[in-house]
């Protein structure tokens, strides 16, 4: 069997080597604004990958900005993509997608208008699994064009992937060769970053270390900026080293309404409001006008959603400071 799907990104590691070679390894100030970071580093038609886990540690501020700037024709790595997918679908930003997990919001349900966007034929999908996309990023991080794996074999997921069957020269066993995934741009939200782009992530890493290595350009949003000594004093903090990073923006609560581990829990009420709004085109448009298109920037969004009072509640929830079920009022 050979996957019939399309590979949306460049696979040749030699082209990527040339690209990575041209990145400066200088320690320089890469701090910019959300607006400029998106303007400068993400272009129509680029292939975009988003850090975090759909509704956990996602770079919401950057995602909103991408929609507001009207980026179109993006490729998108649907590697657990939940609320991030919902945001980009609201802007109809992408037209092709590596689909491992898309559309859904896990146990919360499936947003109908987002699903319609996929069902409409506007998005060309190639199927993968969570492991397959993780390993495709790892192959890229290793600077090779493929990596062998044992998922997907024998299924329609394989048939609609772009993987190819190969034989191990040592054991004669069948494997799937997964093509390396080198995104044009990665956007990743982190706990701390310095001005040079060194980053610290707490909690689950998902695939973000390999994602930062695999991507041609990396935009970081951080809960807070810290001095470089934060990393030089304790190298265990360096989840992503500066030389992989192109732009840094400081956005407190930048993952809201997602869950930022050790910072704030997800705003389930707001996510539910969005999900409910997707029940009809009218309520959907009204919701998006209010919360996404009709506002200036991410700060305005946070204000609209309850501002510091709400953020404090979500922090209480994160730290289990109130009996469960009472914190979200």
């Amino acid at each position, binding site marked *: 069997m050979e996957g019939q799907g399309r590979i949306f990104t460049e696979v040749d590691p030699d082209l990527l080597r040339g690209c990575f070679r041209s990145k400066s390894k200088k320690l320089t100030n890469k701090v910019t604004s959300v607006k400029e970071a998106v303007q400068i580093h993400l272009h129509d038609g680029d292939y975009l990958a988003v850090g975090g886990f759909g509704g956990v540690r996602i770079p919401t501020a950057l995602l909103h900005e991408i929609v507001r700037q009207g980026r179109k024709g993006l490729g998108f790595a649907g590697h657990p993509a939940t609320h991030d997918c919902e945001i980009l679908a609201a802007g109809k930003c992408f037209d092709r997608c590596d689909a491992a997990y898309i559309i859904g919001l896990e*146990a919360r349900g499936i947003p109908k208008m987002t699903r319609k966007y996929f069902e409409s034929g506007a998005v060309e999908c190639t199927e993968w*699994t969570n492991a397959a996309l993780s390993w495709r990023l790892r192959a890229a991080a290793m600077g090779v064009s493929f990596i062998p794996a044992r998922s997907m074999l*024998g299924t*329609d997921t394989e048939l609609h992937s772009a993987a190819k069957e190969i034989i191990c020269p040592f054991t004669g066993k069948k494997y799937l060769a997964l093509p390396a995934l080198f995104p044009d741009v990665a956007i990743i939200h982190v706990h701390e970053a310095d001005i040079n782009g060194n980053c610290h992530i707490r909690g689950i890493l998902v695939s973000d270390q390999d994602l930062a290595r695999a991507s041609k350009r990396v935009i970081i949003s951080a809960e807070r900026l810290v001095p470089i000594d934060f990393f030089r004093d304790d190298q265990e903090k360096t989840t992503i080293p500066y030389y992989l990073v192109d732009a840094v923006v400081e956005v407190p609560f930048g993952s809201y309404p997602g869950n930022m581990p050790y910072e704030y829990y997800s705003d389930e009420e707001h996510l539910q409001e969005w999900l409910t709004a997707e029940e009809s085109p009218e309520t959907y448009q009204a919701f998006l006008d209010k919360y996404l298109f009709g506002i200036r920037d991410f700060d305005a969004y946070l204000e609209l959603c309850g501002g510091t009072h709400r953020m404090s509640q979500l922090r209480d929830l994160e730290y289990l400071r109130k009996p469960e079920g009472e914190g979200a009022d």
Partner: protein
Amino acid sequence: MAYDDPLKARKAKYNGMELLVCVASRYLEDGASVSVGTGVPVAAAMLAQKLYAPNLLVIFEAGGIAPLLPTMPISVGDSRTTHRAIQATSMTEVMDTLSRGLVDYCFLGGAQIDLYGNLNSTQVGTDYRKPKVRFPGSGGANDFGSLAWRTMVVTPQSARRFVPKVDFLTTPGYLDGPGSRERAGLPPGAGPYKVITNLAVLGYHPESKRMMVESIHPGVTLEEVRVNTGFELLVKDPLGTTDPPSEDELRVLREEVDPLKLVIGREAK
């Protein structure tokens, strides 16, 4: 996904969700590892830890390893999944660990399941470019179905869901039957194990690999199970009756595992 209203004879004692959680929990032995999603699986794993398997290693695919769960997570990646955990690692490492054979049990679901335990979580309709309904896709399901030793499916049972052939084979069960997993290149010895529904516990015939009713829940008839299955079901001889939730199970489930009824209260909605 809303679970259909299940049994008739046990209204006063326990509801369908409670039954699912209790039955599922009994399959998890101490010292084993289990990858869980949100909902019934995590409740089952927590219940097992409290009753039978204090050393059950709970793994979340997003990276949470062996947490002391304070409450039900909403996402398999949310911060509850690493609450006082042993490790907060990457999805890549979890998938490596799975591939190396260290994951004993996993729980999966799907919109359709066929007689060989193949699962569809990708779409309704057989035209890939024009699905009637699109679902989220594999996520990690195909990975766990391919590489975990024992796949458990917890799902409501209906003829619409238990189909002769899935529209899209997202996650491998026994594929086309005996030997076909091995021919496809999947690791030997792994694959479908149990299907736990609102009506029965089902397993697979050791030779034919076809789905087989092993026990039916109290108050359910075999005919009901058959009517709610879209293919010919094998029946274990002798056919058992599922042990109903014990008082101990129910007490721990209600008081310690899910006091807010996030999972076991779902039917009431």
